[in-house]
């Protein structure tokens, strides 16, 4: 893995795109050049800032522009993410990254990206990269309800692809769970990112159909570079493995799944 970059980056824009959801664009040309889909960065405010977020927060690199912009999908879960949602153009943040293991985009099969909620983020970056490489990609995106849905037009503008939208209450797109939209007949490769119950269901589906699946996991993180061992997930062989350096993307057979 290349040496991570440590830079201050300027906020270019931060637009609220849905309830508690922002699309944050930063001027970070070196990150844009170095990042690969599935990698993340740590974003923080430095040591003079004792309010949340004091610790930097991990975010999937959610997109890159040809002009050195990167995009992050921010959803409010607490004080730290609320502060990130309140960022204004011209403010600056501290970035560390790109970090972690990226997705491995298959060359020989159709690819189905399954996104739950803010788990959409890595696919906004991955889908256009995969399309550019000639892959046959589809993007399934699920939310609880219409007010949470990240603007479908913006998704299309960023990725070049229209997402197939699902809401649990049927208030936008198709009613139901995003998993309902997966067609396994041609044995696609699956990529997943989203809440743990969604990833578990997706893993079961992949296991039943014997499909390859890579998931991007999320766990509380301290350092982002493997020193603190805070961000562990259970591996298939029963160890706690660091999601920052051994992940955040794992092949499903590497992880332990409850049965």
């Amino acid at each position, binding site marked *: 893995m290349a040496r991570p970059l440590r830079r201050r980056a300027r906020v270019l824009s931060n637009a609220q795109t849905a309830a508690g959801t922002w699309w944050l664009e930063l001027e970070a040309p070196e990150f844009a050049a170095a990042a690969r889909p599935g990698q993340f960065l740590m974003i923080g405010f430095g040591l003079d800032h004792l309010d949340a*977020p004091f610790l930097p927060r991990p975010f999937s690199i959610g997109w890159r522009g040809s002009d050195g912009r990167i995009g992050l999908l921010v959803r409010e879960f607490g004080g730290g993410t609320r502060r990130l949602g309140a960022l204004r153009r011209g403010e600056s943040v501290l970035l560390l990254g790109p970090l972690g293991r990226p997705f491995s985009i298959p060359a020989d099969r159709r690819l189905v990206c399954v996104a739950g909620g803010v788990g959409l983020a890595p696919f906004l970056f991955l889908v256009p990269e995969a399309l550019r490489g000639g892959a046959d990609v589809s993007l399934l995106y699920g939310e609880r309800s219409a007010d949470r849905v990240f603007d479908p037009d913006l998704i299309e503008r960023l990725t070049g692809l229209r997402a197939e939208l699902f809401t649990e209450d049927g208030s936008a797109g198709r009613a139901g769970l995003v998993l309902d939209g997966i067609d396994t007949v041609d044995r696609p490769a699956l990529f997943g990112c989203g809440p743990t119950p969604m990833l578990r269901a997706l893993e079961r589906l992949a296991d039943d159909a014997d499909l390859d699946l890579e998931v991007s996991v999320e766990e509380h993180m301290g*350092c982002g*570079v493997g*020193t603190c061992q805070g*961000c562990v997930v259970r591996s298939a062989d029963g160890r*706690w493995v660091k999601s920052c350096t051994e992940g955040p993307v794992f092949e499903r057979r590497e992880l332990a799944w409850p049965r």
Partner: protein
Amino acid sequence: MAPVSPPGGSAASLSQTVFGVEFQSPVLLASGTCGYGEEYSDLIPLDEIGGLVTKAVSEDPRPGNPPHRVAETPGGMINAIGLQNVGLDRFRAEKLPWLAANLRRARVLVNVVGRTADEFAAVVAGLDDADGFLGYEINVSCPNVEGGTLFGTDPGALSKLVARVRTATERPVVVKLTPNVPDIGLYARVCEEAGADGLSTINTFPGMLIDVERRRPVIGNTSGGISGPAILPMGVYLTWCAARAVSLPVIGIGGIRSANDALQYILAGARLVQIGTALFVDPDVAIEVHRGIAAHVERSDAACLAELVGAVEVAADV
């Protein structure tokens, strides 16, 4: 002591002789926040600072605690990693060689943990003839495993443990004390009398964070250790208490994120300091604190850093 000008000819000398060797800087990285050194080698110029203390090493590998292991608290963090580590054999085979090959001037202390005095002694005996480190930091103060503070809160057990480790090595033995005792000076004296070469004050404070919506502890281990800027004044005070109780060198730890913070520990009596949680926020903090201390010494009336150690002037004896 005779201060030595550091390479590069900076006017202010931060160099001190501690534990019989030269420390080019008082700034070390704290155990548990810098892995085994290698993890931070791309981000921190490790060989330009005083050194580092490794993640705790136990005789056998330990799996660690279930997640969440870390969470933010006001002005800091809570952690309960549970001493996950590769164990003595792999540490010696895989981690020490990197330290031996890559650190020339920075000093390394190996943090040692055990459930029994025998286990502490076994780790020390198993490492003692290896290269790549100066001495040991004996961890009697981990709040995140059962019995982790057993030795650190029982003066009799602490005395026996330190004496036992003392017989197992000629290398420097530093004892990392818990803040969770009514009189840290007592524990400092116990360590001194049992043959310790130094003290590290302090480890984290036990704490708990509750997710109100889910009515569950945030941390998988239920409780954890609190670190970060929130604990700075407690660390400074307990370092002052420990340093005035003994003549041993003391390493000040707890909430340091600036040269000013580090200097508070030094004035309270610390010869060296360790930076921990702040590294996660900004890895540059280590070298910045080093430079900030140098700048302070240069503009102060002190000829060298050592003159500032314990130089706080208190109005009356308390």
